[in-house]
């Protein structure tokens, strides 16, 4: 395993290159997921609070 991580004289170029890629892509994934979760939560709250004026389907069979 240590062999894998020891890239000799070029370690100072190889690891920053991969580290930068991990940082940028990891940050992008985390930011994208967080924004999606926040927006979808907000939308769910808004839709729950909104009084439904028209109902196309009535699966429960209750009167609207």
């Amino acid at each position, binding site marked *: 395993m240590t062999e*894998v991580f020891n890239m000799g004289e070029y370690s100072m*170029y*190889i690891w920053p290159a991969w580290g930068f890629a991990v940082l940028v892509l990891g940050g*992008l994934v985390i930011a994208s*997921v967080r924004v*999606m979760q926040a*927006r*979808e939560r907000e939308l769910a709250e808004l839709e729950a609070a909104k009084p439904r004026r028209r109902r196309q389907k009535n699966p429960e069979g209750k009167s609207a």
Partner: protein
Amino acid sequence: MLQKYANPKRFLTLANSVLPWTTCATVILIVAGLYFAFAASPPDYQQGQTVRIMYVHVPSAWMAMFAYAFIVVASAVGLIWKHPVAHVGALAAAPIGACFTLICLATGSLWGKPMWGTWWVWDARLTSVLILFFLYLGFIALANAFDDSSRGEKASAILALIGGINLPIIKFSVDWWNTLHQPASVSKIDMPSIHSSMLTPLLLMGIGFTALFVTLVIIRVRAELASRRINALRAAKIHAEVAGG
């Protein structure tokens, strides 16, 4: 088929059924790619261990161009057929493409220093990729520059189409001009001039990055569609209050 998925709800149903698969594919392919990149491939006979940078640099460069091609196609579909999800898709892809371009530039620089003796040269390949990065930034800025989002979509889509001319320039820059950058090895018409031990990690990372791109586009499109729906609901609420009060 295209028109069918112009409906955001129908698009979301399809996208959400694809999402778990692309997420799994991303993880498996990138983990396998990393194994082959670091453990199961030899150092290069000329470049030594620095060849390991290739396995992140080249797939990032592919994705930088692929994401832009995606934006060009999505923008054209949005402009011609007034496909609303196409514009949202183009907008979702832009930051992802910009990130891959940035990774391509940074890792290239870190590879250039030990191999060429310089971090940067103003030659055709490097300069055209830097222009690609600025095109992404311009696209994002222009899309968000208008209060009316549909005007921003249209303006940025036109910019994307014009900027599309940069893609063949990047691809053929190494053949058209004298450059420090090496020409293509994988996509040569006869046979790729690269050994399979190095081609395997390259392709695994490339397909893994593509799966990551699709996953991220779906996530970002979902966020944008939710945000548009929120705005529409808020506007309707204000409208109802004004009309009622």
